[in-house]
């Protein structure tokens, strides 16, 4: 990470993904809809050291297409994890002080159980036989993981977008296991507009004949459909301004003589993003996880302030001005509920032009907020610092 003073701070270095398998017995892991999964494997990574009191553990939660690899480098990779600027020695989630865990979600395709995993009953991938999962199920699986790691109470849970929804699920349903929460660029429930965008993505996948009702693992994957879903996603992750700055109306140099080629740079970019995505993500996982997001309701139909009241969670809520996928007014609803419930809450709306992507990019501002917030939660007192 480059700081303002230009000093390069060493990151976390080389890391490895770990796996925890549980619920192998006949009881299995019961999902919110009553169905069962057995066994369940979660991919996760840890950084830093758990102290003897086990009071310094932080769980980081990823967005729709993220994974457990939040920081550091895997052997074969040139790029670090997805929030590397935020996690490491001296960074916002300071691994010299805290024990940081990042878990891949249930339903995913990067090491945890999901529709592409082998169904022990058939010996073949689950495909569309995989049960519907919820954000609540993802968090219940994370609870198994932190139990396994011997952590009773998390110092904090943090994440953006769908990661923020998991943070809210912890806040609303498991406040006895956390001391603080950092929901970023997220909402307590999807608006019809947000559901609509996800539905177009899902329809793109299902309209691809290769999807084949979800049974494609032995043949070829519905890459065209998944790429289109990703393209729609990318439009919603950027802002009008960031697109204008990045592409303008510039045309690509390698224009081919055909009417409907991707002539504009922005078209080329979306194609590139779509193409890259299909190499690393499973179409069925995309369907299952976006459904989980759409059905999420943090307070489960109740008044959010009623559910939150009585909890002692300290909350830091962050939104970004140009984010139109998870606009600040939705994030402010979380703040409002916390306020009404009497929770110790801080809210900041960071000025940024990056749209929803800002939560991954504006790490300097986030670092400032998260670092001091965590210090206060960890030390339990005001930092004696005078700025003027």
């Amino acid at each position: 990470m480059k700081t303002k003073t230009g000093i390069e701070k060493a990151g976390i270095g080389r890391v490895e993904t770990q796996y925890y398998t549980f619920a192998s017995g006949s009881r299995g892991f019961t999902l919110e809809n009553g169905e069962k999964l057995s066994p369940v494997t979660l991919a996760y990574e840890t950084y830093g050291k758990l102290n003897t009191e086990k009071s310094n553990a932080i769980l980081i939660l990823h967005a729709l297409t993220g994974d457990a690899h939040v920081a550091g480098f895997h052997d074969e990779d040139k790029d670090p994890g997805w929030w590397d600027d935020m996690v490491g020695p001296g960074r916002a989630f300071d691994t010299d002080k805290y024990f940081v865990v990042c878990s891949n979600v249930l339903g995913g395709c990067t090491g945890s159980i999901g529709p592409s995993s082998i169904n022990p009953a058939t010996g073949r991938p689950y495909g569309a036989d995989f049960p519907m999962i919820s954000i609540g199920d993802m968090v219940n699986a994370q609870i198994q993981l932190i139990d396994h790691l011997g952590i009773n109470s998390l110092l904090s849970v943090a994440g953006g977008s769908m990661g923020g929804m998991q943070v809210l699920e912890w806040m609303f349903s498991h406040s006895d296991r956390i001391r603080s929460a950092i929901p970023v660029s997220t909402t307590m429930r999807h608006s019809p507009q947000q559901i609509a965008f996800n539905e177009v993505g899902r329809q793109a996948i299902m309209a691809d004949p290769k999807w084949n009702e979800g049974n494609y693992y032995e043949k070829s994957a519905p890459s065209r459909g998944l790429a289109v879903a990703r393209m729609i996603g990318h439009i919603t992750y950027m802002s009008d301004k960031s697109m204008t700055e990045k592409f303008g109306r510039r045309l690509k140099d390698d224009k081919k003589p055909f009417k409907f080629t991707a002539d504009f740079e922005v078209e080329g970019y979306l194609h590139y993003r779509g193409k890259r995505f299909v190499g690393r993500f499973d179409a069925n996982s995309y369907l299952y996880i976006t459904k989980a997001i759409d059905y999420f309701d943090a307070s489960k139909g109740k008044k959010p302030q009623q559910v939150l009241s009585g909890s002692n969670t300290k909350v830091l809520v962050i939104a970004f001005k140009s984010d139109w996928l998870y606009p600040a007014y939705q994030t402010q609803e979380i703040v409002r509920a916390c306020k009404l419930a009497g929770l110790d809450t801080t809210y900041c709306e960071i000025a940024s032009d990056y749209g929803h992507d800002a939560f991954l990019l504006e790490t300097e501002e986030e670092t400032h907020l998260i670092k001091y917030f965590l210090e206060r939660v960890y030390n339990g007192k005001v930092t004696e610092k005078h700025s003027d």
Partner: protein
Amino acid sequence: MISSKDIEYNLISTLVKTGASVLDLGCGSGDLLARLKREKNINKAQGIEIDELAIYKCVEKGLSVFHGDIDTGLAEYEDKSFDYVILNQSFQQVKKPDQVLEEALRVGREVIVGFPNFAYFTARYHLALCGRAPITRSLPYEWYDTPNIHFLSIADFIYYCRHRKIKIIKSYYINKNKQIKIFPNLRALVGIFLITK
């Protein structure tokens, strides 16, 4: 040397009871709130501030703060949610001071208001004799770049409170680094009031 800001904070600090809860509207960088938290063992301290950079400074000081507008930020609080609501040097900057003060009096058991006195004698001189918009120590801005959008005097505020049946529990008047007791509307740069309804 003690600054006028120090004496303002000293006096406000004497108005706040130990162990109380405080909501600071327009808390800026959080200097006052952090000080109260430290000296008065505040059990709940919350700030509201519109400026993003000031939010970072508050968080550095370990304060809880909402990034937002104080014209609209109070509606969600229940009656008497805080022992004190503070409007220090922000009162003259809100769009609707009348409504904000009413809300502050609803949300807080007591309200502390601090504002620059527009009837300070040099301000009168600027306006009456030079025919120019006044610039004083407590109103240091040019007319074109001032954050202040309402101009009131100590006498205005006292009249207003009487009119609205707001009880003034205590008042302090300050010029530079000392308190003013005689002819405050002429001689004080800043007025600080502890009020309730």
